[in-house]
């Protein structure tokens, strides 16, 4: 039993930061997985540079991993860190501003030589010059202690240097009373070909743990008890992984083979990587020659009877516009995932933003309605990937699924859903005995046409991007027919409101202030609303996952609040859309466009200001 004090904390935010090559993503992931197994609620946020390996020790090369764990419900990776692990001066400099006052900073003092701190644009050593006054600074010679520990281990100098992240992890494990077993198991699996690396990494992990226990700088350690989560089996899951798995589930449940056409683009590529691993499910994955080919291959696959999917980010969506219009007029199923990143143009590829909403809604030539939905947490990317596939297949329409860099790379515990808990997917596939059939005959209720798969006798037909006759699908230049077709395609999308869930309000059904958000801002908005509600304020949250069409009860919900504030990471795109769709309401707006998520603190401040107006 530990002889020192163990204090209990409700929640804690830790940021691991170092050079791109220091293994901070791995360190953060290990801390996350271990805490998940202890039953904490968790949210994570990796923050890495666009450069793969920027020059060592530079500000541009800092890679970070933020993790927020709690006994209470955790909505976001946290506004500010209780503990910062900085492996070099550049990591300190880029992260110091987000450390809480009097927070703990663990430094690798071996990397704070003159050359190193100057490379991070410090004029003097920040450890000595008062920069860190007021913080609880833990000076640990991590590199040299790692070296000492592995002397005579048989590992070469480079391999030894790479073990230092385990030292830092060991220290943090002691600080938060985490067991080492999970990470030891991980090390054994990761280096199963190399006994020396297994022994070396495990040793350094334990040495770091013991070092933290011994030094006086850390007088007590902390524990965070398990959170009260619903009963069930959990796993940790990242947004992009959840998206990929949602598609696998949709393919299995619908019986339609999954076909992904994709072109590598940050931050969407992980979906391509993930699906490439699952060919045993019959998944066909094709890395195309460009974004346009990627969507066209998916459309061709849909024509051929597959669940055609393409994954991309903002610039790629722009390139795919014309092809999405083709899938729309041809009325073929297609799911387009846009993992939004900072724009415009190349913008901020590794940062998050929500500025592609209007592109998704309107960015095509002609009247070109498509379904637009958005995931709002890393784990519900699974549900909305599934829903996007279901809507595309059952309603014969392109669906744009919006996620973002924050959701894509963020992770959280997920209460695993069994595929049999998911709703059925029943695409309108024709069988060969169908008589009196024409390609554009529609279901009277849903306005959905049938899907006639090539290879089936008697269903031979031609479709295309030219305007087509309302029934036969033959090319038609008839003026009235064109208007009728434009209207029916719009109506078909609007009819989907009949089958999607109603908008849910978190907090009371009516009152002073309704906070409106969509997609990936859910965590911060819910946390802010929760905090204000607890302090007695009349604030509720309506987070939209279904954007086109809007849930049927949207106007009803809006009408019950005195003030509506629409919060988004852009210059007001959803509020523009709401204003044109539901012009009877007045919308206040709150925007941020810095490539970073909202902080809970800034939201609370703003909402309080509105409430006291």
């Amino acid at each position, binding site marked *: 039993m530990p002889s020192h004090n163990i204090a209990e904390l409700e929640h804690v935010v830790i940021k691991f930061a170092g050079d791109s090559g220091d293994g901070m993503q791995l360190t953060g992931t290990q801390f996350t997985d271990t805490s998940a197994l202890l039953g904490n609620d968790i949210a994570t946020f990796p923050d890495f540079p666009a450069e793969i390996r920027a020059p060592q020790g530079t500000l541009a090369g800092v890679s970070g991993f933020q993790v927020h764990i709690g006994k209470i419900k955790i909505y976001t990776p946290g506004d500010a860190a209780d503990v910062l692990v900085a492996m070099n001066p550049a990591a300190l400099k880029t992260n110091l501003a987000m450390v809480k006052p009097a927070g703990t900073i663990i430094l690798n003092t071996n990397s704070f030589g003159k050359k190193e701190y100057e490379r991070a644009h410090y004029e003097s050593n920040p450890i000595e010059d008062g920069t860190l006054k007021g913080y609880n600074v833990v000076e640990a010679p991590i590199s040299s202690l790692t070296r000492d520990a592995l002397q005579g281990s048989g590992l070469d100098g480079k391999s030894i240097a790479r073990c230092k992240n385990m030292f830092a992890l060991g220290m943090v494990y002691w600080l938060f009373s985490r067991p080492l077993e999970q990470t030891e198991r991980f090390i054994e699996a990761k280096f199963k070909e190399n006994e020396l690396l297994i022994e070396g990494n495990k040793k350094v992990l334990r040495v770091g743990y013991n070092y933290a226990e011994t030094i006086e700088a850390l007088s007590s350690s902390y524990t965070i008890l398990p959170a009260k989560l619903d009963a069930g089996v959990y796993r940790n899951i990242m947004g992009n992984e959840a998206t990929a798995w949602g598609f696998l589930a949709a393919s299995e449940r619908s019986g339609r083979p999954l076909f992904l056409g994709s072109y590598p683009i940050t931050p969407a590529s992980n979906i391509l990587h993930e699906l490439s691993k699952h060919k045993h*499910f019959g998944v066909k994955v094709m890395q195309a020659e460009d974004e346009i080919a990627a969507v066209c291959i998916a459309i061709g696959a849909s024509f051929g009877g597959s669940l055609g999917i393409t994954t991309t980010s903002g610039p790629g969506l722009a390139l795919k516009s014309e092809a999405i219009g083709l899938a729309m007029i041809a009325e073929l199923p297609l799911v387009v995932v846009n993992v939004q990143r900072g724009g415009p143009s190349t913008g901020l590829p590794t940062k998050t933003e929500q500025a592609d909403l209007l592109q998704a809604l309107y960015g095509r030539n002609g009247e070109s309605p498509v379904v637009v939905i958005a995931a709002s947490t890393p784990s519900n990317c699974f549900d909305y990937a599934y829903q996007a596939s279901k809507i595309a297949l059952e309603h014969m329409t392109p669906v744009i699924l919006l996620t973002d860099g924050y959701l894509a790379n963020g992770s959280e515990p997920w209460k695993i859903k069994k595929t049999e808990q998911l709703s059925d997917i029943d695409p309108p596939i024709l069988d060969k005995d169908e008589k009196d059939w024409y390609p554009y005959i529609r279901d009277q209720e849903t306005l959905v046409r049938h899907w006639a798969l090539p290879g089936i006798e008697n269903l031979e037909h031609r479709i295309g991007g030219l305007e087509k006759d309302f029934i036969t699908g*033959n090319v038609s230049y008839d003026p009235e027919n064109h208007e009728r077709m434009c209207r029916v395609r719009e109506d078909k999308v609007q009819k989907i409101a009949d089958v999607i869930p109603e908008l849910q309000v978190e907090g009371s059904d009516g009152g002073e202030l309704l906070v409106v958000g969509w997609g990936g801002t859910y965590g911060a908005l819910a946390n802010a609303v929760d905090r204000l509600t607890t302090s007695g304020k009349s604030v509720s949250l309506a987070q939209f996952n279904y954007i086109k069409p809007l849930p049927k009860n949207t106007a009803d919900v809006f009408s019950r609040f005195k003030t509506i504030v629409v919060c988004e990471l852009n210059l007001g795109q959803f509020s523009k859309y709401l204003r044109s769709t539901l012009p009877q309401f007045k919308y206040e707006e709150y925007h941020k466009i810095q490539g970073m998520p909202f902080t809970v603190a800034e939201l609370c401040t703003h909402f309080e200001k509105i409430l006291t107006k």
Partner: protein
Amino acid sequence: MSETQESPKTHKDYASDQEVRWCPGCGDNSILIALRKSMAEMNKKTESLVFVSGIGCAARFPYYMNSYGFHTIHGRGAAIATGVKLSNPDLSVWLATGDGDSLAIGGNHFIHILRRNVNVNVLLFNNEIYGLTKGQFSPTSPLGKKSKSSPQGTIDRPFNPSSLALGAGATFFARAVDTLPKQMTQIFVDAEQHIGTSLVEILQNCNIFNDKCFADITGKEVKDDHQLWLEHGAPMIFGADKNKGLKLKGFELEVVTIGENGVTENDVLIHDAENQSPVLHQLLASMRPPEFPMALGVIRKAKTITYDQLIEDQLAASKKNPVHGNVNELLFSGETWEI
């Protein structure tokens, strides 16, 4: 319908109910008939056929075939045809495209379908002009060509489609002429029988915007001397008197006359369409009158594994040793915990 499937088909069985709307006299009309005849010759089931196209005059092709068809967007037909074929490899997939569609706006997809060797037949209607947009020069228009968008003559050096295709790794390249339907029909059959991307360049006359652009090849007076019909295993002999042949001179081809300067038939090159090396195929396909005859027929037909086969092989290999039996097993794999 099942009775008609069993009885021999005629080209009319492959005609859709749509009125053909190409200009009277356009080469596209004869290509359509030849294609339908080739289908009848192979007794293809109409439901197994998919015609895909991009944009342009040629791209109307799918509407006129009694088969599955998808008229798509400019330049992207090759990518869409790739998706259709990979989605259902049992289908016979055809792409009808033109020199603008495949060599300008769709250049990227054109080279990549050839590189991958997806088992799709590509019919490249080459009329060296933009017809549907009414007469602008195309990437195959000869240098100096006067058109609506080049009143002083083009300053664009043209592509030779065959060089581009063979450079991109085409495993099958044939050239047909719209006014020679019998040979064209046979070439379409050959294209379908080749497993891999089969590219057929069809010299197609646009009688409205670029009339007689291939007159130096098809003209009555010149055709015997300006057409070399290649046949695998046969000597490369042509000419009104069947006494001209091709010979290698260093790294280049030369035209020789049998019976002159001691040249005998044995000196003439024998066509090997199946040679994996595309070097001689390149030389042959690049020939153009008046110095050389135009090479016609199947110039290259090299056996190479297809992309569609490789994708199926990988799937089969993964299914033999599945990591997870179903999606539930995946969801519950790795580190999980129970609350």
